[in-house]
């Protein structure tokens, strides 16, 4: 099992250079059956990462470019009249794929955003009163530009909460960047990637992640973290129970990926910033959703030992 995971990490890492932590987090997210939000400037390799993941995991892939005029039907699909049969036939939209890259999700209007987000939560869409199940597995990687850029509709807290993790890619380090400049085009490289894992194996891995052991002491630690966000004045609001579950699920996957049958506090700490930053807001901060400093405070101030 461990070899499979290592292989996927290596494969993706050969295209997305110098971002091993982010790749691991993205895979952990996938293993936890959660959705991923990547927030960064344009041109940082968000698409490349998504595309590489699809290829390595052998998932059907589609990309939805969100613009300010996109409509829900453009995402979900719409019934179209078939002249030959004389009936309306439903044409599936791009959402009927296993891995969706929802690019620049905060550039579109709340109406279209919510169409996607509802699909993410329920894993089905309802068109004309008929529920249509989305493929299994269903994994959304959404990207967004930093919310203070012009022409953005920031996602509300309720929708941010649907994403298991939010990561930033950041600039590559100089060595990685040198290779990037010397090497071939990324798109070509993605084509050369090998599938490292099949659907069945992915299912097994996801099941195995759920089976990772969690001790009372660790649950205490997680609850202390949750309580800290709820009791300390510097947070506008505490973490929701969904946030707590997200933290636990991610930590389990992380532990599994690191070849442990049980979760240790370090696993929680490794995934904590990605899981909580977009769910927290500083009390004195009305505009930005960036909880980076807050996550750091949680790491520093909540005692690992009872």
């Amino acid at each position, binding site marked *: 099992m461990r070899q499979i995971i290592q292989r996927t990490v290596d494969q993706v890492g050969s295209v997305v250079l110098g971002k091993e932590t982010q790749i691991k987090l993205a895979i952990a997210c996938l293993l936890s059956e959660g959705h991923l939000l990547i927030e960064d400037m344009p041109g940082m390799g968000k698409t490349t990462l998504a595309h590489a993941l699809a290829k390595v995991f052998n998932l059907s892939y589609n990309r939805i470019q969100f613009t300010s005029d996109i409509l829900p039907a453009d995402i979900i699909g719409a019934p179209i009249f078939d002249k030959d049969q004389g009936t309306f036939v439903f044409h599936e939209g791009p959402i009927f794929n296993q891995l969706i890259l929802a690019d620049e999700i905060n550039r579109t209007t709340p109406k279209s955003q919510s169409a996607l987000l509802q699909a993410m939560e329920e894993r089905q869409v309802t068109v004309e009163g008929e529920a249509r199940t989305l493929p299994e597995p269903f994994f959304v990687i959404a990207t967004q530009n930093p919310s203070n850029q012009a022409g953005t509709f920031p996602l509300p807290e309720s929708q941010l909460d649907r994403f298991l993790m939010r990561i930033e890619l950041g600039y590559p380090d100089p060595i990685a960047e040198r290779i990037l400049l010397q090497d071939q085009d990324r798109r070509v490289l993605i084509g050369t990637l090998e599938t490292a894992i099949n659907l069945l194996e992915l299912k097994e891995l996801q099941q195995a992640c759920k089976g990772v052991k969690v*001790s009372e002491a660790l649950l205490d630690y997680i609850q202390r973290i949750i309580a800290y966000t709820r009791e300390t004045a510097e947070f506008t609001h505490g973490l929701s129970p969904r946030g707590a579950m997200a933290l636990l699920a991610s930590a389990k996957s992380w532990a599994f990926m690191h070849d442990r049958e049980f979760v240790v506090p370090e696993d929680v700490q490794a995934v904590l910033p990605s899981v909580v930053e977009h769910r927290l807001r500083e009390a004195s901060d009305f505009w930005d959703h960036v909880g980076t400093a807050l996550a750091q405070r949680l790491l520093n101030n909540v005692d690992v030992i009872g």
Partner: protein
Amino acid sequence: MYQIPRNALALMLVSIALVILSHVMRLPIWVTLMCIGCCAWRVMVFHGRWSFPGRWVKAFFVFGSFLGVGFGYGTLLGLEPWVGMLVIALVLKLLEMHRKQDAYTVVVLAYFVALTEFLFEQSIPYTIYMYVTITVITSALIGLNQAEVSPKAAFIKASVMLAQAIPMMILLFVLFPRIGPLWTVPVQSNVAKTGVTDSMSPGNIAELVQSDALAFRATFEGEVPAYSQLYWRGLVLSYFNKGHQSWTQERPGLYGRTLQGKNDVAAWKDNMEYLGDPVKYSVIMEPTNQNWVFSLTLPEMTEQERLGLVRDFRFYSFQEIRARFQYELTSYLDYRTDVELTDFWRHRYTLLPEDDNPRTRALGETLRADSISDDDYLSQVLRHFMAEGFAYTLKPPMLEGNTIDQFLFETKRGFCEHFAGSFVYLMRAGGVPARVVVGYQGGEFNRRGNYVAVRQFDAHAWAEVWMEGQGWIRVDPTAVVAPQRIQEGLEFAVEGEEFLADVGLSPMKFRSTLWITELRLQFSALNHYWDAWVVGYSPTMQMELLNRYLGKIDRKTMGMYLLGGFFTIFALVALFLLMKRSSRKLAPVEKEYLRYCQYLAGQGLARAVGEGPIDYGRRVASARPDLAPGINAVTNAYVRLNFAEDRPGEPELLRKAYRNLRIRSFA
């Protein structure tokens, strides 16, 4: 554009209202109206109906109110105009609250204006009021920083914060070195204070006794003398002014030297003979804006600052008493003074204006001719007061012209000043040296505080007569006419007339209702302690107190105690926090692991609060490669025991690993 949080603005307006309310009696009415106007304007700005005032409007307000204060008070110097300016600045700043910093400025100003209240009032009710005000201001500050906190929650939080500050406050109050003021600000004195004045004409004192205001409190060491012995001498009036028909003080130049300090020398110092037992007492006087202080005869010289003993055996303060003033004296109720009287003084004390009150003079001469000695003459005069149908009343008729003649022969109804004034006049007409003394007589004894409270309605005038071989003796003609006044007090002497008719609702009117009296006495005793120990806590008193409880002390040791006190408080807080922390129940494995952490902390490798065991183990192992195997063993054992199973396992494995680590580190 900064929009102040709604709750913060509401709390801010309430605190400004509270702050200004305490000053409102001293402020011109237009300032109060301006305050209300500015607050209303700010509310309208908040609702977006009005805009902030423009630059010219603000300039107009500032200079206009500057001039207004100058004209309103007649001066720009002095405390009241300054406080007025400060209040105006506070409310105008409300209209300039564009940014968060401005809001902070308003809060700080509010604190400052609240503080100035203590320049005028230091009583218990005001202190409680100020405490509440400060709490509200603090909650406004909280509201400013935490916009989503409700006003009630902010107030509760502020109360808790202030309550927590009380130990520190007491410590600072008691121990912080007290320094005299570096500068003083004149408190405007046009506010009339009631009290005895330095000239006495019929009607003066009768007016004064309409007030129940406190004059002073005297605490006795030991037994309090009998009521009829409590003659508080304030002023001696020995010159009759014909034009005003009033008794006034002797020209100060005639008296010669005023004694200051026990070792001061003056020729007349030997004219005082102390007999009997001393009576020790301490007096806290309310401000009078006058120089005279009150003492029982005959006071002994004192080292008290500011006080001097005048030729007529009473004390005088070199500075006007503008604030509550405390002094300690020893008096001898049995005494002899001026056994010998020089011809000059005999002349001065029998001096009467020419062609004045002829009927009184004639009466004096007749009675003198009938009597065999000065003593006899005195008794004859007193008998005259007793026999001729004189009455003691709070509402004496108005007198005009030769007032003494009019009183003695026509109206015959008067108050103490009528009796004392006419009696001295009559004695002088018969050639006997006599003078009027003004002060207070009696006072209410408070058993709880063992002090006597003397109020304005205890004001009294009596006489002193010089007798050959006896010196000056006290004669109180009022005692002859209305003995109850001297033995029990005014309200018993004027039965049938309404006591304190001009005062509204006063607890003093209900002296016969037991529980009101009880309550009043309790509160009064509390006030007394407050004045004596809190308001009157002066540099000298601080030194005395600290010397008594902490031994010989100087500024340096005082600072040490202060620091010590600080650290004690901090240590207690820290201890409390620690107790709270360790109250969580730890599994044996965790306890054992913490022991290991503590051991490593002793080696200079403490675990950070948020550091997980594996990270910690890695860090420590790289810092101490010699211990690395042992540390890894402990870490593995701990992680396995604490996290691998649902419930923490038995700590044996961990204990063993830890022991091995210790043994290895010794080797």
